[in-house]
C-alpha cells in the first residue's frame, strides 16, 4: 500500500481498521546474494539502497532482536552536518541531502524537522574555532552561520547569558540541522526495503561466520545456517563481537551513552542547542518532552544502562545553561551501546576476509549518518569499491596514520 492523503482518507472512513503490517516478518531462506547482519538504521538503509540503487533484491537483513530495538531507537534524534575535517564534511552533507528527500523517496513520514542546531561558544578561542568550522562547512556546501550573543538571545531568551564561569558569547548555527523521528527511520527503511523484496528476519542472532581460504560463505544463526558470498556487518555496539567471529580485532571499544526525556511540556524550545562548556544538548520532541543527553559513561560496557555520576554531570551542565530546567521532572532515561572507534570516526570498508564488509565505529553520532551510511555501504557491497565521500573511512587508516580525529583526542575512545 502506497501512503497518501487518499489512503489516509479512505482508512479514516473505515475507522482505521484496514491498515496492513508495514513489512513482512520473513522466515530465512537457505541462501541469499547478500546477508546484512544488524537490523538497525544502517543495516536497513543499506538493504534499501542495495535494492533501489543497485538492482539487487536477493537480500536478507538478520536482526537478533526486533527492528528498532538497538541504537536507532535509543538515540536523541539529532541530525547535522557540522563537521570540520575533509574526510567527514562531504559525507555528512550527503547524509543531510538524503534526509531532505527521504520521506518522498521511501514514502514514509519520518518527521524530518530542520529546526536548526545551535552550538554555543563561551570564549574567544571557542568562537574562533567555530568560525573555522563554519567556514569548512560552507566550503563543503553545508550551511553555517556564526551568531553573536544578541542574535542567540533573540532565539533563546531563557538561557543563562551571564553565567559567572561560562557566559554565552554566541553560537554556530546550522539551520538545516534538526531532528528526525528515529523509530520512523527504522520502520520507514524496513518497509521500503521490504517493498523491494528484501527479507527482514527478526529474532535471528548471528552466532558464527562461515569462512575458509576463499572468503566468506555464510553465517550460523539461532535459526540455522544461511549461505551467501557477501556478508555485511552493521551491528553498531556489537561490532567487535562479530569481527571476533572472523578472527579480527577492531580499533573499537563498546561504551554506554545515556539519554533523558522530561515530562511532556508545552512548546518551550524550537531548535536544538548544545552547551559549549560541558557536554549537554537539548531539544523538544513533538510530544512535548525535552530530550537531552551528554557524555558517555567512559568505560567499556555492554550493559545498555549507565551509572549515576554521568546523570549528575548532565543535569549540572543543563542547569548551567538553562536554569529554568530545575523545575522540570525527568520522566525516563536509558542507555545504548555504541562502538567508539579509536579516532572517533566510522569505518565503511572491506575486511581482510573476502566478501565480508564492515560498517562500524559510529560512536554517539551515527543516527544522522544513517542515510549516507546505507548509501555508501550499499555502493561498496554492490561494486566492491568505496563511494567517493566515504573513501576516507578505511579500516587500515590506523596503521597508515590517516586517522580522522575531529577532536584531536588520540587513541582513547572515551575521550571522543
Amino acid at each position: 500500500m502506497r501512503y497518501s492523503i487518499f489512503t489516509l482518507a479512505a482508512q479514516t472512513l473505515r475507522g482505521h481498521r484496514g491498515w496492513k503490517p508495514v513489512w513482512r516478518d520473513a522466515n530465512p531462506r537457505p541462501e541469499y546474494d547478500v546477508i546484512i547482519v544488524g537490523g538497525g538504521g544502517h543495516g536497513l538503509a543499506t538493504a534499501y539502497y542495495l535494492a533501489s540503487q543497485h538492482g539487487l533484491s536477493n537480500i536478507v537483513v538478520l536482526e537478533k532482536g526486533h527492528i528498532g530495538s538497538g541504537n536507532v531507537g535509543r538515540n536523541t534524534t539529532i541530525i547535522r552536518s557540522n563537521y570540520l575535517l575533509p574526510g567527514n564534511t562531504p559525507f555528512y552533507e550527503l547524509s543531510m541531502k538524503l534526509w531532505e528527500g527521504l520521506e518522498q523517496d521511501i514514502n514514509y513520514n519520518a518527521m524530518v524537522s530542520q529546526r536548526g542546531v545551535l552550538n554555543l561558544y563561551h570564549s574567544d578561542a571557542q568562537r574562533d574555532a567555530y568560525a573555522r568550522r563554519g567556514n569548512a562547512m560552507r566550503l563543503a556546501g553545508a550551511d553555517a552561520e556564526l551568531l553573536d550573543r544578541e542574535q542567540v538571545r533573540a532565539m533563546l531568551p531563557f538561557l543563562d547569558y551571564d553565567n559567572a564561569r561560562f557566559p554565552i558569547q554566541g553560537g554556530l548555527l546550522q539551520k538545516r540541522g534538526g531532528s528526525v523521528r528515529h523509530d520512523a527511520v527504522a520502520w520507514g527503511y524496513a518497509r521500503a526495503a521490504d517493498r523491494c523484496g528484501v527479507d527482514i528476519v527478526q529474532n535471528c542472532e548471528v552466532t558464527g561466520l562461515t569462512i575458509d581460504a576463499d572468503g566468506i560463505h555464510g553465517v550460523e544463526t539461532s535459526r540455522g545456517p544461511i549461505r551467501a558470498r557477501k556478508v555485511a556487518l552493521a551491528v553498531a555496539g556489537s561490532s567487535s563481537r562479530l569481527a571476533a567471529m572472523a578472527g579480527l580485532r577492531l580499533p573499537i571499544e563498546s561504551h554506554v551513552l545515556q539519554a533523558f526525556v522530561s515530562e511532556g511540556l508545552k512548546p518551550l524550545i524550537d531548535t536544538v542547542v548544545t552547551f559549549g562548556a560541558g557536554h549537554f544538548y537539548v531539544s523538544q520532541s513533538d510530544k512535548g518532552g525535552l530530550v537531552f543527553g551528554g557524555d558517555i559513561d567512559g568505560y567499556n560496557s555492554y550493559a545498555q544502562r549507565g551509572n549515576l555520576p554521568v546523570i549528575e554531570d548532565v543535569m549540572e551542565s543543563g542547569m548551567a545553561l538553562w536554569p529554568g530546567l530545575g523545575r522540570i521532572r525527568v520522566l525516563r532515561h536509558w542507555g545504548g551501546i555504541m562502538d567508539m572507534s579509536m579516532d572517533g570516526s566510522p569505518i565503511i570498508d572491506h575486511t581482510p576476509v573476502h566478501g565480508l564488509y564492515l560498517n562500524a565505529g559510529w560512536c554517539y553520532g551515527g543516527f544522522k549518518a544513517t542515510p549516507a551510511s546505507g548509501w555508501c555501504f550499499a555502493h561498496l557491497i554492490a561494486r566492491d569499491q568505496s563511494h567517493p565521500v566515504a573513501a576516507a573511512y578505511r579500516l587500515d587508516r590506523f596503521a597508515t596514520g590517516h586517522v580522522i580525529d575531529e577532536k584531536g583526542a588520540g587513541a582513547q575512545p572515551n575521550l571522543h
Partner: protein
Amino acid sequence: MRLPCPHCGTRDVQEFTYLGDANVKRPGADEMSEAAMTRYVYERDNPAGRQREYWHHSSGCHAWIVVTRDTRTHRIESAEPAKPLVQS
C-alpha cells in the same frame, strides 16, 4: 558503580579515571614493528564479559589499579595494585 581500591577501600567510580584494557602490552624494542605498534595502540579485544582494565584513583590515593569487571553487568570481580602486575 563503585570500585574497591586496594588502598582506600570501596569508593565511588567518580573518583577514578579510566584508561582501558590492561592486557595490551607495548612491544619491546626487539619486537617493534609498524604492525605491532598498530595492534598495541589501536586494536582491542573489547570483550562482552570479563575484562581486566586499568583505572587511576585520581581523586584518591593516585595509584593505578587493575580491575576485573564484567562489561555486561558491571559486576566487579577483583581489584589489585597495577604496579606488581606491570613489573612481572
